[in-house]
């Protein structure tokens, strides 16, 4: 890819703005944080973000969740990377803790299937449109979400 990092950031920002999703893509300090670009988007925009990155040849690295119990929110973090250009992009999205729902990106990246199942296992975040949100790492009959901060065994 023969874009500079700032050009890529501007392209993605305008792509997000078109979807009226909000979220500016910022260039961050790679040496400290380990990624090149970061963006915080509304939950409804994660599929659009995934499609924009898919068109530019990015690969999905991982999806994870964070339970910000003090703020009453849960965060879903998507990591993308570009194998030939070596860039790393992090997309974040905050959800209300009482009803954590976010659309699935497994239609764009099939690898997201397992990552989303694991995030659902650990946090109880529901990925709308996911083909099969059964427990993945926990036993089949598990009804608990262990990585929540208020989880007691």
């Amino acid at each position, binding site marked *: 890819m023969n874009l500079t990092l700032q050009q890529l950031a501007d392209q993605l920002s305008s792509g997000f703005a078109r979807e009226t999703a909000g979220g500016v893509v910022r260039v961050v300090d790679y*040496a*400290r*944080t*380990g*990624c090149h670009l970061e963006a915080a988007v509304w939950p409804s925009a994660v599929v659009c973000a995934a499609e924009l990155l898919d068109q530019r*040849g*990015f*690969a*999905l*690295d*991982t999806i*994870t969740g*964070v*339970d910000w119990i003090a703020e009453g929110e849960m965060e879903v*973090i998507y*990591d993308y*990377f570009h*194998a*030939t250009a*070596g860039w*790393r992009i*992090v997309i974040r999205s905050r959800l209300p803790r009482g009803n954590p729902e976010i659309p699935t990106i497994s239609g764009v*990246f*099939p*690898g997201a*299937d*397992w*990552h989303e199942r694991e995030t659902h296992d*650990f946090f109880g975040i529901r990925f709308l449109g996911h083909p099969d949100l059964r*427990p*993945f*790492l*926990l*036993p089949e009959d598990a009804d608990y979400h*262990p*990585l929540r901060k208020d989880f007691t065994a």
Partner: protein
Amino acid sequence: MIAPQAICPEGTRNETFVLNLGPQHPATHGVLRVKLTMDGEYITRAEPVVGYIHRMQEKMAENRTYARFLPNTSRIDYLSAMAYTHAFVAAVERAARIEVPARAEYIRVVTSELNRISSHLVWFGAFLLDLGGFTPLLYAFDDRERILDLLEGISGSRLTYCYYRFGGLCNDIDEDFIKGTHDFVARMRPRLKMYRTLVTDNIILRKRLIGIGPISQEMCRRYGATGPVIRGSGVAYDVRKAEPYSVYPEFNFDVPVFPEGDSMARYLVRMAEMEQSLRIIEQALDKLPGGPVMASNVPRVLKLPAGDYCCAVEAARGRFAVRIISDNKEIPYRVKLRTPSFSNLSLFEEASQGMMLPDALALMGSLDLVIPDIDR
């Protein structure tokens, strides 16, 4: 490969059965269960079921201080323990702005590369065992024992080392280690040639692996596969070159890439990587500087400033990354471990459709999975 339709007439092939592979099975390299829906000898659907060795590593990280989590890092992927500890230690050093002395970085590279060779030797032995050959396992484990002797001399442990500390290493290396490593490198090069004539050029292996389990670049990208899987499909993505860490930029080494994308390509990538690791070890020992192996003012109990810190390494199986989210306390708020075997196995369902069962096992062996890496 003869397609099923060619063998039996139409109308007689409408029955599939479900076969359970694992969780206890000699060829699954750990506790992996695969629910196979079979049409005779051909797989129509292979659904991996994981979680049988889920050991709560990410939850434990929220209950341990940074130093007390170090032994856990070795046990995520026990064959590549040095690299995993390296990722965690480097992430903390990045966040706490700790400068690691040059001698420690060089020794980290030497030990990580020795660990990579020993991991590839275990893969080599186990893979050939799956394909039906018992002898290469014994040869590979003999070579591996020599590496383990070296690493045991400096770290005290054969398999799950906890050798790195925040700011450097726990022990310096001695003359025995340096001489032993030089001897090992001199011994290993002819052994790799022997493996080539004994195993790689073996007609049975070639028939079992060439053309089996093709994985395209596009499939690698959509599933996030890294490591020898993506390099065996023609993409030269190696974290040591793409996101250089430690002192890897100072060494001259190639990233072996094979474009075919079949199991043979992944096999050749790993065999070539062992050669390249020997090159790196030699260069690192030649250039080894003197000095301390531990930074001088590392606090006993670390508190990282609030924020997100990520660090990745090239482990033997692919890209391993640690993301630490800290809220300025002594224990992390969240630690995410991005493990290579997880992404590498996720493409198995799509890649194994329509394959015969022994070929699917060859494909699974060529992905080089360690199941605790998937389950964490």
